[in-house]
Every structure is written in C-alpha cells, then in structure tokens.
C-alpha cells in the first residue's frame, strides 16, 4: 500500500507542506492562521497514528524503510527507517508538536503566521533526525532544526531572548560541526576498508575500527550529543534558552530536542564505536558526568526563584538519569533510559505547559509572587500535582518506571552509582514538592492572584493526553518494554558481545580487537 510504504515521508513532510501552504494565508486573519496551524499539526499527529498498529515488535531491525538515490557521487541516500527507539520518540514528537501548536493559541499575539510556520518547520526537522537512516541526511536535519528554533526563541521569547537564542545556536552548532568531522572520519574509514562511499547507518554500525580511532570519534560525537542533551558541563545554554523561549518552544525543546542528544548516543556512539563506549575510562567519565548532572541539576533547582528556571534545571537532572542509563551499558539501563526519555518528554513538557498557563495569566514566574493557588485554581492544582508526581517518580506514574529500571541497571553495574542516582530522586522530590508547597498551598494573600481563572478547555486538552500517557506508562508499561526489547538487545550485543553469553559481565581489557571483529561479523545475522 502506498500510504504504508511512504508513511515516514508523509509524517515528516506534512508539517513542511502545511508551512508552505500557510505562507499564502493573509497576515491579518489571525483566527484563520491559528485554525490552519492547529489543523495541520493535528493531521501531522493523526498520520503518525497508523505506526502504532503497523509497528512490529518482533522485528529487531528497521521498519518502514524508504530508500532512494540522493547524491550518488558521495553515496548519500534519502533513506528513512525506524526501530523501537525512534518509533517511541516519533510518537512523542508528533504529539508534543500538536500540543505545542495548540498551547500557543492565545500566548502568541504578534507575527502569528511566522510563528506557526517556524513551529511546523521545526516539526519536520525533528522527524527527519529520528527517521534518517543515512548519516548525511541525519546531519542535514540536525542542523536545519536549529534555524526555526533560533527564531522561536529570538522573536517570541522573553527579555533576554536574543542572547538566549544565539547562545543556543552557537553551542549546538559548535558541537554539531565537530560531530560532522566525526561523521566524515567514519565515512572515510569505511571507504578505506570496504572501498564503498556510503553514509548508510546500519553499514557504519557494523564497522570495526582500532580503539584509538574510536576514542577520537567518540570524543567528536560526544561533544555534539552532550551539548544537545545537555550533559554537565555543557548545560549552560539550557536554562537561558528555556527561560526565554515561549511555552511551545520550551515544551518542544525539553520534550523532543534534548532527546536528540541521547538518541544520538544510542544510535551512533554505542553501535558505531562499541570498543570506545566499553572502554572503562570512557564509561567512568560518562557515568561521572551523568551523576554530577543529576545531583547538580537537582541542587540548582532547589535554589531557583523563577518557576520556569526551576523546571529547566530539573531537566539537567533528569537528562543525567537518561545518560546514566545509557552508559551503564546493560539492557536494563538502556531500556530504562529510553522509557525515561519518553517520561521526561511527558512530564517536563507538561510542567512547561503549566508554567506557561500561569505566565499567560500573571506575566511573571517569580515563585514568591504565588501561593495558595489551589484555592482558586483547583483543576490546575490537581493537574500540577499529578505532573509533579510523575516527574519526581511516584509509583503508578511514569517517572517511577523509568527511574527504577535505570537504577536497576546502574545497580547491576556499580552500587555506588545507583546510590548517588537515588540521591538525585530524593532531591527531585524535594524541589518539586517545595515548589508545589510554595505556589499551591498556603494562603492566597497576593491580591493579583485573587482573580486568576482556572484552566480552560483548550489548556486542559493540551494537558490531558500527557497525563493519560503518564498513567499508562505508570500502570501498564509492558507495551513499551516490548517495543524496546529487540532494539536494546541489538545495541547491547554490539557493545558487549559477551553479555548474553556468560551471565555476569566482566569488563574486558581496554584493547580487545577480537571482540570487535566478532561483533562486526555477528551483528548482521541478528537483524
């Protein structure tokens, strides 16, 4: 079926096509523009839904593959495909993309048309990153995405928007150009081994390279991905970008864009550079940075006076969990980290929506300005409670599942790491509950807050799907684990060829060329 065979292209290009159509709408008719943008974004979500029914959990390889010649002279192809990891992230991105458009209805008053066009362009860029099966294509989308995000922050952002926007752009760009060098080096290495110029991701994921080269490439990729995640100490762009961005920008930035870094680690760093990832020095460094991120992010969150900044720093902490899960290099850690990526998209996305709702009413985010909101905004307070609980990892909600499985993985690798991670959860509970106490409880003594309206229907529509999803993962996470089982196995087999063979894993000595050879020969058979 044509639609089945090209579903990825359709999901990807529908927002772009919509953005191009919107160019022809009259500038003055804001209602028409808003309706069209919402319809396009909703269609974008709808066309991604068939993936849910068609996705085959038992297939460990890439599905819905599309492949066409693009630049034959350098071997770059237009190749798309998804596995369980990208499938979940795509569903998250299409949902958040729609929510992002919907939540901007009243928030954006100026230059409405441009705003929605940039938002839709961003959507296409994100889809491209998660779907690309060609490294060159991936890089193109990775960079393309920066431009609309720059404008979303730079035009519709807060008081320091220009600083935040250019900082975001420059940080990410510096990382990604270094990543480009890594891509070119791996491309060149593949050619010198096989004589073929190709950017095909599955092919490049089966190379065996000398450890020394792998370490250099790992460093190059690391800079690109770690800035995007962001890992400590590359996180300084994040609070600025989040605080200044409009609500939809923050939701998408936290919900989807940050996942591109962790997705990059899972898709490229681990399978392409398994010996480097396994190297004990690298592993220690990665885990240490993750743990610092967890604790540091949480401590800084505790100190924040600005509501949105608090949520922003909590992202640093949560993303620390995700990278911790990735770099403990066992199935539990990696599965947990992917679940947690979805969770973070849900919880932090919802938190930013909630902050946006209050900011639209009061035009301030000073925590001290608020208090006792639960008396006047009961629905808001309830939703906020659920979302905060989901973020801090209360059982029956999604955050618990992700963090628990990550800590299981961490425990399996090293008990101290798990202990420090748990400290992060405790601190997470502290800053979120304290925030809740300061804003929702107490007496409603600030006269400016006395007239605040509770969430309206449209705002509830943006939040409810996320809350439902949070409960779903919290109560019945099995479908998600099923989706991830095969792709995670593939990654673990590649990084630790002997993991499934010999029970307890012992790290091999730093240089183990034979192991790499085995992995190079063994992996294709599994796909």
């Amino acid at each position, binding site marked *: 079926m044509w639609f089945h065979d090209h579903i990825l292209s359709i999901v990807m290009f529908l927002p772009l096509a919509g953005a191009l159509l919107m160019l022809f709408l009259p500038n003055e008719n804001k209602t028409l523009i808003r309706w069209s943008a919402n319809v396009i974004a909703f269609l974008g979500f709808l066309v991604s839904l068939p993936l849910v029914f068609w996705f085959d959990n038992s297939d460990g390889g890439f599905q819905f593959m599309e492949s066409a010649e693009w*630049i034959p002279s350098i071997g770059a192809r237009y190749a798309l495909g998804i596995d369980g990891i990208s499938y979940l992230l795509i569903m998250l991105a299409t949902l958040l993309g729609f929510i992002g458009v919907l939540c901007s209805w009243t928030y954006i008053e100026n230059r409405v048309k441009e705003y929605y066009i940039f938002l839709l362009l961003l959507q296409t860029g994100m889809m491209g990153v998660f779907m690309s099966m060609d490294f060159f294509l991936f890089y193109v989308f990775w960079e393309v995405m920066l*431009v609309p995000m720059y404008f979303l922050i*730079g*035009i519709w952002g807060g008081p320091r928007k220009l600083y935040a926007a250019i900082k975001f752009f420059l940080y990410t*760009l510096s990382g990604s150009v*270094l990543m480009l060098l890594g891509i*070119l080096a791996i491309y060149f290495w593949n050619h010198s081994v096989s004589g073929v110029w190709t950017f095909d991701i599955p092919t490049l994921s089966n190379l065996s390279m000398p450890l020394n080269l792998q370490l250099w490439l790992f460093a190059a990729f690391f800079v690109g991905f770690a800035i995007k995640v962001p890992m400590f100490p590359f996180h300084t762009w994040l609070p600025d970008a989040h605080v200044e961005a409009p609500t939809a920008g923050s939701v998408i930035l936290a919900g989807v864009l940050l996942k591109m870094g962790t997705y990059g680690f899972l898709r490229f760093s681990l399978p392409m550079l398994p010996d480097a990832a396994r190297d004990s020095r690298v592993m220690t460094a990665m885990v240490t940075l993750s743990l610092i991120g967890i604790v540091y992010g949480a401590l800084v969150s505790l100190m924040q006076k600005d509501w949105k900044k608090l949520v922003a720093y909590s992202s640093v902490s949560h993303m620390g969990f995700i990278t911790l899960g990735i770099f403990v290099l066992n199935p539990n850690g990696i599965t947990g980290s992917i679940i947690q990526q979805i969770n973070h998209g849900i919880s932090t996305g919802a938190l930013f929506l909630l902050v946006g709702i209050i900011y639209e009413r009061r035009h301030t985010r000073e925590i001290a300005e608020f208090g006792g909101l639960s008396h006047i905004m009961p629905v808001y307070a309830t939703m906020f409670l659920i979302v905060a609980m989901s973020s801090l990892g209360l059982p029956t909600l999604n955050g618990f599942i992700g963090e628990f499985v990550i800590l299981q993985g961490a425990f399996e690798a090293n008990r101290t790491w798990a202990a420090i991670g748990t400290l992060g959860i405790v601190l997470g509970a502290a800053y979120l509950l304290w925030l809740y106490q300061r804003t929702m409880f107490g007496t409603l003594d600030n006269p400016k807050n006395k007239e605040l309206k509770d969430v309206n229907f449209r705002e509830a529509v943006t939040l409810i799907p996320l809350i439902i999803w949070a409960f779903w993962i919290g109560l019945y996470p099995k479908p998600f684990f099923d989706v991830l089982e095969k792709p995670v196995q593939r990654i673990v087999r590649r990084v630790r060829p002997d993991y499934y063979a010999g029970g307890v894993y012992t790290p091999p000595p730093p240089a183990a060329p034979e192991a790499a050879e085995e992995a190079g020969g063994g992996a294709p058979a599994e796909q």
Partner: protein
Amino acid sequence: MLNEYFSSVDLLVLKPAILLTLFAIGVLLTDLMLEPEQKYLNAVMALAGVGFAAYSLGPWPLGLQHQMGMAGVDALEAFRGAVIVDSFGIYFMWLFLIAAALSILISIRYLEIEGENRGEYYAIMLMATVGMIFLAIGMDLITLFMGLELMVISIYILTGYLRRDRRSNEAALKYLLLGAFSSGILLYGMSLLYGLSGSTDLRIIASSISQRPAGDPLVLIAVITICGGLFFKIGAVPFHQWLPDAYEGAPHCVTAFMSVGPKAASFAFLIRMFLVPLASVRDVWLPLVIGVAIATMTIGNLAAITQTNVKRMLGYSAISHAGYMLLGIISGNENGLKGIVIYLMVYTFMNLGAMAVIVAMRRKDIIGDEIDDFAGLIYKSPTAAVLMLIFLLSLAGIPPTAGFIGKYFIFLSLIETGHYGLAVVAVLYVAVSLYYYFQIVTSMFTREATDNVAPAMAPGIRLALGISLAMTLFIGLYPDPIINIAGNTVASILR
C-alpha cells in the same frame, strides 16, 4: 607564412574572450548614441556579449569539452601552448560569465540611482572578465600576468567609479597602490622562475624546478614572492588590509562583482601555479600556506564580528572564505580541489545574492549598507529578508544550502589527508562566522524598522536574486550535478 603562427584552433579557443572584447568596444560606441533614459540598453548590450560568449562555450556545462571529447582531445592548446582550454578552464569561464551577468543585472538600477549611468562601466566590467578568462586558461607566465593586470586595473577603475564619492575614491587609491605593489612582487617571483628555467611556459618551468636541488634558496625566494603576490590577490592574511576598505568603499554592485569574479580568477591562477610549476616544491610552500590559511580564517572571522557595516563585514567574511579555500590547496587531493571549485561556484551565487540584497537597499538618500539599515526588513520586504537569511545561512555553511556542500568537501579532504587539527579549527570558525552573519539576521527579523522605505526591487535585481536563490537551494538540495562537473574539472588539472 601566417599559418606557422596561427591556426583555427587559436581562434576557437579564444572565442569567448574575443566576443567579450568586441562587445566591450560595442558598448562604448553605442553609449554615444543613447539618450540618458535609454542607458539601460548598455546593460542589455553587455549582457548580450556575455550571452554570446557563453554560447560560444557550447551548452552548459561542458559543451566545448564535450565537443573536444568527441574529437578525442582532452584539452585544446593554442598559441604554441600559451593558453590551454581544458575542463578546468571551461568551468572557470562559465563561472566568470555567470558572475559578470549577475553583476550587470544588479548594476542597472544602482547606477541610475547614483546618476553615473555610463557605458564605460559595462565595458570595463567585460574587459575585467576577459582578463579573468586569461587567468584561467593561461599556461604561460606572460599570458597570465597580462590577464591578471587587465583584470585588476579594470577593477581599480570600477572601485573608484563614483567620482564624486570620497569613499569610492579612497578605496580605489588604496587598492591601486597596494595592488600595484603586490603585482610587482609577483612579477619579481615570476622573473626568478624564468631565470631558473629559461622559459615562461609553466610546464617547462615545472620540470626545471623539479630538477633543482632540495632547499635551493633561489627557488625558496621565488616561491615566497609568488605566494605573496597570489595571497594578496585572494585577500589572504597578512596581505588582506586592502580588502575591507575596497569592499566598503566601492559601489555596491562593484563590490558584488569583485568579491566573486576576480576572486575566483585569482584562485584559478593560484591553483595553476601551485599544481604546475610549484608542484614539485610542495614541501616548501605547504607550511607557508597552512600558516596563512589559519591566520586568514582567524583574522577574517574575528574581525568580522565587530563590524557594523554589512559590506565591510562581508569583506572580512570574504577573507575567511579565502582561508577555507586555501585548506583545499593544503590537502591538495581530488576532494580538496573539488571543494575549491565547488566552493567558488557556490560562493558566486550566495555572495552575489547577498550583495544583490544590499544593492536593493540602496535607495534615494539611503546608502543601505549598515546593519542598522537592515532593521525590521522583515516588515518592509519579507522576500528580501528571507532571501538574505538563506544567503547568509549558505555563507555560514548550514545545510541544506549550497554553502554546506563547498565546506563539506574541504572538511572531507582535510580528514582524508590527516590534517585533523586544521579541520577542528576550520569547523569551529563556522560557529564564529554564524555569529556575525546572524547579527544581520537579528537586525532584519527582531528589530523595529527605522524607516518605511521598502528596498527597490528593480527587474534586474529580481532576476539576479531569483537565479542566485535557485542555485543556492538547488546545489544545496541536489548537489550531484555540480559534484560531477567539479570532478571532471579537477581531473583535467590533476592529470
């Protein structure tokens, strides 16, 4: 008797140059007969000249080469080897003709506004193009030097074309003095090469140089002086000081022309010199070029940050682009050279596009080249703002614009040849360059307009912008054709 000296091949090879010269003279003659309001016909005449010259090259992109290929020859030599037309030469001739045509298109309206709408402007531009052609096809020191001087003297005149504008005069004088000096240095190096080999033919020079003992001081001096002259022409550090002044002071449309045509011609000349006569002494000039390339990227990018004048900023950015292209010389392999020729073609479109927007900003009483002049352009002319954005993204090298493809090959060649450190420096300067290009973008998209005079989009500018935009996007999204053409081009000079 005459047949001993000339053959029909000689004329075939020189067809484009001859046609351009005839039309240059033609413009001068018809100019006398035109009423002031008909002066745009000069531009039409000049464009016709460019068109005929292009037609004589055969169908795009490799018409003449294709004809030669059918006759079983790779290159046509003429005038006893003084000029040689191979795919390299044909590629660059196309590039010069495109640059000239686009520059003429954006000049029409600008000259009307300045009230300097005279025929000699176009005549001189065509003569400069003739000079550039000889730089690309010359195989003889004398031919090359004649071509170079024809080109630069024409550009000196064009720089100072606005006689009543002090900035224009100052720029022309600075450029002339420094340019003449550098030509002298270059000529000194050439005389040494002649002394060492007894010939002005590049291939004979190449074989005698390769027989000299290693570390010969005469060769060293020749290399250094020639490098000095060449670096001046492409605006590489430390011979770059003239460039920002000349770019800022020259009329907008001349800045546009000189930033692409003569730059590409100088690079063609530089590639020829480095790959033919100086190929055997690569060890001598390589460290020199590496140092110059790093310095060029550094100074170009860092100095551009503080500029408030867009033309001056693009001047410094032109310096940094020259640094990037030098990296292709450093790797010196197929991909590196491919990178340079693609970069030059791409640069022609994106830089001319950006300059065309600046030209459109020139309105009555508004010079339009300060960053502040771009404030709020998105409100006044959304098209111009978006076009400028795309050209600037391309200049910075963000995919999927054409600029990325040029940089891609340069970076790939550096990785191939193991210049990892250089590659890291080069990619990081991409981020720096984005910072200053985005000062313009920020001004256009986020600031309030200070006046409400929309840019003057004359038909010529529209056409030039349309072509530049189409090519910038086309090469970026589907670079395969240009990569193949570049592959052909490079093959002919690596042969």
